[in-house]
């Protein structure tokens, strides 16, 4: 009884600790900003205007449609990865990280490479005598782009749950005369429902806050709430409108997470043996080829950017980059140092908090995390610069505040991974260790770490990758002696050093992709 009490108490401490940290790191600076600038309760006044109403409706509509379609497109992939021994498994899995790390413009350029006027599709059609044309810039191209960037999320989240469905249950349904699809509807689907809802939530939140993809790919007519928030934030006198909209957006995302979890319930099934014994179906090839082409387009375009030059491909950008007076090369080491230091420090911190929060898997953590998705990084950075001033921090050292900012930005992603890791963690091992008299540290180093190492590393790498690419908040808190790769890219673009900017983009993408491959390699070696 005492032991149970102690465990219960321990869980509570972990819960409260992580909630406390999240509130302090994220909601406190935000509240500070609100208390300074939101003089009148403008929330409802702003939201009642017809234009804002139409934007909110559109934001909901496109996010729901994109998320639902992403699930439909992702389910076959989830099946292939979880139930069969399909080759290139880790390749597909690594795709699921793409939407979280690749910046919107790079994603859009990936789409341009396939569906643009000089894209692959246009090129193929021109062989048959069609005039080159772009297939982008419409409502459906926004949905297409969102689906392309989100179906891998379904593959990963639903796939992880699917591989834990008992093979015998499925087989017995098939013995009763149902085909594989019939068995899927009766057995797999109900069991997968919570994970499908969770995947819906992740894709929905991503599409809800989508900004550049909607603007660039959608064209003139379309705006999401994030576009409105950004444009009001940029306008000096409209900060209160931006803050009102941010509060509203954040509340919506929090509420959506509550509703999804209430509908889906919590998945706390016992870990079972992973089985991948099913036959690879005939449709595999038809499904996989377009998925790989589309799914990898943003990564490929971000890597290739450095080679794109005036009227073709070549190495001239690299030659400019490595020339002796290149401003990019001059700052590269410093930028690399800062980027690595800040992204890894923040990621370690994020890992720690999400480790605590993921333990109980309580709804409150997901609710808070989803609210954070609704607060744009630049808003957060404004809040932190007020905090920095209040603490009398020197302007040259204020960039240290990027550690908590990156932590807040990456927390929702890390929480997703750590919650699922804890869910499948054999907790009886902890009890057994306790029976053997292990203390907290021994439990951590001898039981938890060996079992969770891979997920922790992959979560750490993912958070680092996201922090490395962060631009908006980093720009807001920069100082002359401080810069990161992403701010250096921005600086190169804005001073018309396009060639250097493109090469830096390639370097950053290569770093991020290398981290993914490393993370996936570690996970894979775990499975084998």
């Amino acid at each position, binding site marked *: 009884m005492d032991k149970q009490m102690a465990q219960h108490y321990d869980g509570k401490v972990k819960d409260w600790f992580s909630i406390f940290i999240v509130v302090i790191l994220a909601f406190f600076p935000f509240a500070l900003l609100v208390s300074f600038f939101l003089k009148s309760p403008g929330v409802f006044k702003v939201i009642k205007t017809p234009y804002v109403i139409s934007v909110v409706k559109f934001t909901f509509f496109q996010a729901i449609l994109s998320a639902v379609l992403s699930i439909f497109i992702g389910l076959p992939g989830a099946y292939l990865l979880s139930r069969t021994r399909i080759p290139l498994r880790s390749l597909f899995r690594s795709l699921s990280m793409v939407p979280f790390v690749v910046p919107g413009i790079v994603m859009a350029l990936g789409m341009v490479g396939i569906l643009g006027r000089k894209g692959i599709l246009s090129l193929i059609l021109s062989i048959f005598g069609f005039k080159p044309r772009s297939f982008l810039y419409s409502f459906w191209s926004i949905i297409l782009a969102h689906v392309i960037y989100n179906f891998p999320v379904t593959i990963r989240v639903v796939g992880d749950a699917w591989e834990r469905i008992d093979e015998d249950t499925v087989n017995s349904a098939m013995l009763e005369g149902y085909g594989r699809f019939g068995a899927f509807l009766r057995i797999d689907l109900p069991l997968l429902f919570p994970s499908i809802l969770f995947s819906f939530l992740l894709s929905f939140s991503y599409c809800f806050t989508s900004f550049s993809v909607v*603007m*660039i790919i959608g064209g003139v007519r379309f705006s999401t709430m994030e576009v409105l928030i950004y444009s009001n934030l940029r306008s*000096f006198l409209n900060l209160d409108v931006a803050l009102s909209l941010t509060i509203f957006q954040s509340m919506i995302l929090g509420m959506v997470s509550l509703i999804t979890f209430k509908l889906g319930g919590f998945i706390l099934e016992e870990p079972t043996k992973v089985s991948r014994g099913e036959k690879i179906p005939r449709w595999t090839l038809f499904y996989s080829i377009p998925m790989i082409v589309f799914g990898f387009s943003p990564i490929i375009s971000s890597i290739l950017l450095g080679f*794109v030059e005036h*009227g073709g491909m070549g190495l001239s950008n690299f030659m400019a980059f490595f020339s002796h007076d290149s401003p990019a090369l001059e700052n590269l080491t410093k930028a690399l140092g800062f980027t690595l230091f800040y992204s890894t420090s923040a990621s370690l911190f994020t890992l720690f908090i999400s480790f605590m929060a993921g333990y109980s898997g309580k709804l409150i953590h997901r609710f808070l995390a989803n609210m954070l998705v609704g607060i744009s990084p630049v808003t957060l950075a404004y809040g932190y610069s007020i905090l920095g001033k209040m603490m009398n921090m020197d*302007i040259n050292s204020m960039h240290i505040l990027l550690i908590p900012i990156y932590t807040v930005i990456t927390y929702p992603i890390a929480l997703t991974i750590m919650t699922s890791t804890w869910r499948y963690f054999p907790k009886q091992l902890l009890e057994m260790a306790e029976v053997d008299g292990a203390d907290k540290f021994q439990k951590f180093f001898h039981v938890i770490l060996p079992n969770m190492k891979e997920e922790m590393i992959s979560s750490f790498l993912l958070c680092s990758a996201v922090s490395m690419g962060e631009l908006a908040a980093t720009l*807001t808190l920069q100082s002359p002696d401080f810069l990161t790769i992403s701010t250096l890219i921005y600086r190169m673009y804005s001073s018309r050093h396009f060639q250097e900017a493109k090469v830096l983009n390639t370097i950053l993408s290569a770093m991020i992709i290398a981290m993914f491959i490393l993370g996936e390699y570690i996970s894979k070696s775990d499975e084998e």
Partner: protein
Amino acid sequence: MRKIAFIVILAFLIIGSTFPQNTLVIYTYDSFVSGIAKVVIPKFERMYGCEVKVYSFGDAGNALMRVFMEGDKTKADILLGLDQNMIIDAFKKGIFEPYKPLNHSLIKYPEFLDERWRVVPYDFGAIAIVYDSEEVKDPPKSFKDLLDERWRRSIIIEDPRTSSTGRAFLIWTVAVFGEDGFVDFWRKLKPNILTVTAGWDEAFQLFEAGEAPMMVSYATDGAYSYYAYKSTRYKAVIPEEGAFVQVEYAGILKFSKNKEFAKRFMEFLLMDQFQSEIPLNQWMYPVTDVELPDVYKYAATVEKILKVDPSEVERKMDEWINKWLNIMMEK
């Protein structure tokens, strides 16, 4: 663990150094820091024996926001880089200390001046239509030409809500067609717009990827293209109705702790040492009578400057943007 803690503390200490006494602090936008500042700041430091720290927070809007948030605790002496529309916001907050530079007579354009000398103009640029000459053989000469059917889905513009280039283009159309006519112009232009991007960078990347043969950009793009790539492929054209110029200003902040150096810097902005560096670093035009470099023959020429009253822009910008939005939202 202790080692790591030590390194972290050491890093904080190194990063957190404080300002020496005779330091002039400038808040500005990013390309100023990575471009012209590297050439001109050392000159100023040598001339006056002081240290200059230049901070950027992204674009000029962010720098202004920073000054506003820091209030009387600001470290900045000078805010540099606001255009004629942004200074109206800044004037409302009363953040500048008026100062008339001793060499003010060097400024060639009286229309750029602030009558109370709260800010000083140091350069200006013009918005233009930039086109790919390999695809466009007969570029539009006027705004009316831009409406031609042959340009269906052919031009990329920037959103006036998120981009200063986009905002300037919208104001330009108001200046050309007046408050009554610009709505009609945009309605007719809409089928020729391929897409609207959040910023200039995105527009340029799409343009370079060949998505459209024209984009809204700057008059000096052709000169830059020749200077950097020896290519005359991208050319800029200013429609015959006249140019809309963006003037950039600098001003001394009311809470500056170093006003004497700040005043000298205002004068320095108008000296040849600064002005002659503008064309090839800022890719803008100088405000004094310095000679333009040879590559500027590839820039679109500014023959007629359209007059727009900044206070009217300030008063009506939201209304114009809303009208623009309504047209864009129409099916």
